[in-house]
């Protein structure tokens, strides 16, 4: 019963958000499965389909064929265990992750990554976007999650500034691809 009420509330909130967003372009779509956590259920916001073309889909090897599918480049293999939860599809997913994760978990991730972050960035600075191997791509994605989590630890000391406006009301509508080469870069 309580669960039903919860679902009902979320549906109501989703309808409200839809109404609030009525003036947005009509082609919004739900790109995250509502079943993957309550905090996603009312979020009708995703990457704009027109921008998807720019997104290089995360190059996944099918599960059956991969052994160590969470592996990072060798010097950083000690961080492999963070890959499943923290190598995320895009900026929108990372912001959601921050909003839906406890500060203790964020801090554990931050504390694990930070000591190696400079070495990782030195390594990544020798790699070109558009040419990353899957382990390198995962390493970059972990660092992008660190960028998202930074202010939670360094500015606010909480998942979100308690005074902050609801970030779901100000979504990314044009997003930077994580791993594609960028126009104007001389590679």
């Amino acid at each position: 019963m309580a669960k039903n009420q919860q679902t009902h509330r979320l549906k109501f909130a989703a309808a409200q958000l839809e109404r609030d967003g009525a003036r947005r372009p009509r082609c919004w779509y739900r790109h995250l499965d509502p079943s993957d956590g309550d905090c996603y259920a009312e979020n009708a916001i995703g990457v704009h389909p027109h921008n998807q073309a720019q997104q290089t889909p995360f190059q996944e090897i099918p599960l059956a064929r991969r052994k160590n599918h969470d592996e990072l480049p060798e010097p950083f293999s000690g961080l492999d265990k963070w890959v499943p939860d923290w190598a995320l599809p895009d900026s929108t997913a990372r912001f959601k992750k921050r909003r839906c994760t406890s500060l203790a978990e964020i801090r554990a991730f931050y504390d694990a990554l930070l000591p190696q972050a400079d070495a990782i960035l030195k390594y990544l600075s020798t790699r070109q976007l558009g040419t990353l191997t899957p382990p390198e791509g995962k390493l970059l994605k972990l660092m992008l999650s660190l960028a998202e989590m930074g202010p939670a630890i360094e500015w606010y000391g909480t998942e979100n500034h308690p005074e902050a406006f609801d970030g779901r009301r100000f979504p990314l509508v044009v997003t930077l691809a994580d791993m594609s080469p960028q126009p104007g870069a001389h590679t």
Partner: protein
Amino acid sequence: MNERLMKTPEITPPTLTLRYPELGTGPISTDAYWKPEFYAQELEAIFKRAWLCVGRVEQAAAVGDFFVKKLPTFDMSIIVARGKDGTLRAFHNMCQHRGNHVELRAQGHCVGFTCPFHGWTYGLDGKLVGVPDAQGFFDLDKSTLSLKQVALDIWEGFVFINLDPNPCQSLVEFLGTHGRDLEGYAFERGTAVFEYEGTINCNWKCMIDSFCETYHVPILHKHSIKDTLAGPDNPHGRLIDIRLKTPHRTMSVWGNMAYQPNPVQGLAFKYAPGPSITSGAVDENSVLPKGLNETRAPNWSIDVSAFFPNWLIVMGSGMYFTHQMWPIAPNRVVWQMRGFLRPAQNAAQRFGQENSMVELRDAVLEDCNTLERIQSVLDQGLLKEFLYHDHELGLRHQYHVVKQWVDDYAKARA
């Protein structure tokens, strides 16, 4: 006087407003920030007559490229397309048969536009070229049925339109010295583009005002950008300078050169493609146009350049971002924030970019609850006047310019 104080450049004293005696120093009526009658006048006098930025030339670089810009204020859709002659043109997205949108995509490449209702087709120059079963119409004259063109002009790669069929000023005249003084900035180098969009329950002018003063920075932004844009040497967040180039204006924002970044932030600054948004660092290789940090203050971080009526460019030496406010009601605004970063030359610089996006978003989200609370007070008619600090001169100026445009338009029509 101790050594530190002697070395510190002096904080701008609160005498900026006195340079502009025509603006006065008294309180400002809040009527313009909530009354529906005034809002209706603003749409006619300002938004249907001023030049409005709708994008950049790179969005339609090649012949046949187009993009569609929605103007939430009028629930209007505008096509910007590059014709066979290389010319950029703007059209109302409106079929001459019965008014359907002829282009439904947000951007793309095409040889012309085909209405998805009955299939009328138009060239890139807007001319009607095809009508299925044309014999069924009475006295059909195709030459009079082109897509309705909208005035378009370009400044520094930014595409502007004007909804007035006969704009009273050219874009160059409209931008005046404000535009001239910013020419030459490397706008085209900001090719890594991201954009946030949301609807905020406040008057469009209040939303603009929130980026035109830094008096609130040490208080409202105490967890985030307080230590970069204010600091022990500038505890109250005074600006370096405000220059009015009516109807436009620029605020030069002070930067704390002694700022020590946090750990993740420090790494992001180190690996950013050019100075990142919150670092306040200066790109040594950029030649700054006259109008950017015009006083050439050494402790400068960014300029907020306000283009009347609804567009701001927040410019640093190596990156910039824009805010655009589209009113949709007296107390509601669609807010678009678009970042233009230098492209990442390697994978580590992508991390620096992410930090810029995240910190910018977090900082501006701190502004919005305040705006909605103020609007609810205004909507109740409870607060009759705003009192402006000297360094809130930009707010006073916006009010005067808006009032002037509304009054002039009313007078001209009387």
